[in-house]
């Protein structure tokens, strides 16, 4: 496989290029090192709202023009915001990829943030949050996350608190944009059917004239070690009970990252590693066998994400209607205790290695996934992890997995949330309107 080229412009822009010449397609990404992690109380949700405003026009490209141009050229584009990053991408027939370079260089510096556009987008953002509020799992996740992080900004969800969304001003948004959207706070990733020298020159021409921005404030807050188990019991109308436990875990650059990745994979399978995200359902994994096969739950998962600051190991389950949530909790804790007291088997370890190997091959079918992986990994740790990921997994020993289980899966290190349907299940009544 050919190498990933790394380059830097004088204004601080980092560039990662990977030619893949198997289909006449290329993908172009800009990753900004900003997300809800960089937000303070009063303006929670600002990073995500800024992302929406980036489609509202610049002096040279009016509102809606970006998507129109992409469509006219047979491409797709989108953007998303998470705790640690905000990412924008265009995937196009490769002879049209210059368009993406032009669009992204323009909106890195020239987005307008018109006051009327901010006003109409406020209700759209609130509507996005309200759509999520229709899901019992959203309420549970938001409460448990807030309890697990007392001081670190991982405390709040990327969408932001509704009261902040109601009161944030145009200047709050614009100042955030001016501070964090600058070449020295961004990584450009291009993957696909192009010549690396040519692509590098085009990027330098388009982005090189953008001045370096101020140094961005570093997130200094460190979540103090958790001293006591925390519990949330949430009662709302809903169809069944939901369980969620967050254990503080390692960051993506911590040596414990890979053993913890294997730990979560033994518990519930290797999740999908493609950008669109479907992996194997992990039905031979420990948690599936202990909770779903026994009829206690209809699904169960152990999620573990790569993050800049220490993230969480998330264990979640949906109770089969009528099963008391205490039983779900007991079964999950029994499995977590087992993996901390007894080493995993050789078969389990080999299974994780093979799953990671095949997921990597599947994820490289198409340029978009590769663009996602390189950018995401570079934000949270380093893009170099991409080439060494499988090797790192293969170096994990059974004893490492047991050690991280003992270290992180403890009672004092966890925040437990129960969603209990209020008044039993909801009854719906239909009427003709």
């Amino acid at each position, binding site marked *: 496989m050919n190498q990933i080229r790394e380059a830097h412009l004088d204004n601080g822009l980092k560039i990662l290029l990977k030619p893949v010449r198997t289909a006449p397609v290329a993908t172009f990404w800009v990753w900004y090192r900003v997300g809800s992690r960089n937000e303070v109380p009063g303006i929670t949700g600002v990073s995500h709202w800024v992302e929406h405003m980036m489609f509202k026009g610049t002096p040279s490209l009016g509102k809606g023009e970006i998507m129109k141009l992409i469509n006219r050229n047979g491409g797709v584009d989108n953007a998303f915001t998470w705790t640690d990053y905000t990412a924008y991408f265009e995937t196009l027939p490769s002879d049209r990829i210059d368009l993406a370079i032009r669009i992204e260089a323009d909106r890195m510096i020239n987005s307008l943030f018109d006051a009327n556009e901010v006003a109409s987008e406020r209700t759209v953002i609130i509507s996005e949050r309200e759509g999520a509020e229709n899901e019992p799992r959203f309420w549970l996740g938001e409460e448990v996350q807030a309890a697990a992080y007392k001081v670190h900004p991982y405390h709040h969800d990327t969408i932001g608190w509704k009261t902040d969304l109601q009161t944030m001003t145009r200047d709050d948004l614009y100042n955030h944009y001016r501070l964090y959207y600058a070449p020295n706070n961004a990584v450009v990733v291009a993957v696909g059917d192009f010549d690396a020298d040519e692509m590098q020159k085009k990027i330098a021409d388009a982005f090189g004239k953008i001045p370096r921005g101020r140094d961005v404030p570093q997130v200094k807050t460190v979540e103090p070690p958790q001293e006591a188990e925390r519990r949330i019991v949430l009662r709302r109308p809903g169809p069944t009970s939901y369980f969620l436990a967050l254990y503080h875990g390692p960051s993506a650059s911590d040596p414990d990252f890979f053993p913890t990745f294997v730990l979560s994979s033994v518990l519930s399978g*290797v999740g999908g590693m493609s950008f669109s995200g479907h992996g194997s359902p992990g039905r031979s994994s420990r948690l599936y066998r202990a909770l779903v096969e026994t009829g206690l739950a209809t699904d169960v998962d152990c999620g573990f994400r790569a993050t800049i600051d220490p993230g969480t190991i998330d264990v979640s389950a949906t109770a089969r209607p009528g099963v008391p949530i205490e039983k779900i909790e007991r079964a999950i804790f029994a499995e977590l205790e087992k993996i901390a007291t007894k080493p995993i088997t050789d078969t389990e370890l080999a299974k994780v290695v093979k799953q990671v190997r095949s997921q990597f091959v599947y994820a490289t079918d198409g340029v978009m996934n590769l663009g996602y992986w390189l950018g995401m990994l570079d934000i949270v740790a380093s893009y170099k992890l991409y080439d060494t990921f499988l090797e790192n997994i293969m170096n994990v020993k059974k004893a490492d997995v047991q050690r991280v289980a003992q270290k992180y899966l403890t009672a004092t290190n966890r925040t437990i949330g129960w969603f209990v349907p209020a008044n039993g299940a909801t009854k719906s009544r239909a009427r003709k309107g």
Partner: protein
Amino acid sequence: MANTLPITPESITRVTLDNGLTILVKDNPNNASVALRGRIRAGGLYDTDKTAGLAHFATAALQRGTRKRSFQKLNEELDRYGMSFGVGSGMELIGFSAKSLVEDFDRVLALAADVLLHPTYPRVETEKLRQEILADLKEADDDTGHVAYRAFRALCYPSAHPYHRLSDGRAETVKRLTLDALRDFHARYFRPDVMTIVIVGDIRANDAIARIERAFGKWKVRGKPAEHQLPDAPKLKQIQRKVIPLAGKTQADLVLGYPGLRRTDPDFYPLNIGDMIFGRLGLYGRLGANVRDKQGLAYYVLSGVEANIGAGPWSVRAGVNPKNLDRAIDGIIAEINRLRSEPVSADELNEARDFLTGSLALRLETNDGVAATLSDIELFGLGLDYLQRYPGIIRAITAEQILAAAQKYAQVENYALAIAGPVGG
């Protein structure tokens, strides 16, 4: 990189085995994996009101145990080799898909054949699955988008039409389906002569066909397959409106629309291009520009034409705060009126045409993308030269044809509208 189409009559191998199984193969050496997609012409259309959910349950239960593999053994095998296999039933088709590294292709093929040909419907595992389906139905009853869409389908199609229901059934029917009924469904409708398998990946065509023949060639057919017919849907005669209150919700989901058309209907291209302009291009087309961007009423408002073997619906979906419901509905109706009363602009038409023809490269970039396109070409009889003809088909569609199609399928005075959420009650 030459701009060559991956699907042409020369690059695809298509054969039909003696037992009627049709196989299409595209050799793609660029990724060390193989993607398999299959379809069987059967599904929930054979369910009755009393057996609603039978096809869905019988198909999902295939993986719960086979002649050679218990449920646990099957799961272990898939995970051990990093492979995937899934099978499920919709209203008119049963679909299955598999993926593996090239080195494991025989393994996943053998597993797929075992599941599709020799399910045993073991009691314990099948009963567990029944409970999981019942739990899914209960969760779906709490999902505003799902509840609104289900009610919309019931309003839009008469009770005798399969599209009146969704394929997952109802709790009271799923509870009563017997194991014998599941077995009978499998025996009756799983046949090689109504099945297609598409393979795309790092494998030579003759090799792939030989392996499929080894796995599926001994499968015999008896008699003739059941008729696979979906009746036309009558036009709506009045506004059909239903409001379903759900407790504990913040937002209301709405679905508004009409019975649409079949994929093979000549009106498909004008209606589909009109719908792109109406509610899909860019950020949800005209609907997005009006209801989301100008009025700020909804995070999502979009449209879609479900043109299948049968005439699926043409509908708009949106999620809105209950206090904005009337304004959002007025905005949607205003855009339907506009689409019916004046031709789309040359600029809009060109944008839609350019997108449809230009984005082929993206749609055909991955093994999965090629397999999906090839499956549709086969299902709808479009011909292996379809992609070569496609730009011509799209370029020929005019604004007048779009106007005529909009007028034929959308009647502002007669629509179906379902709303679920914190409303009424």
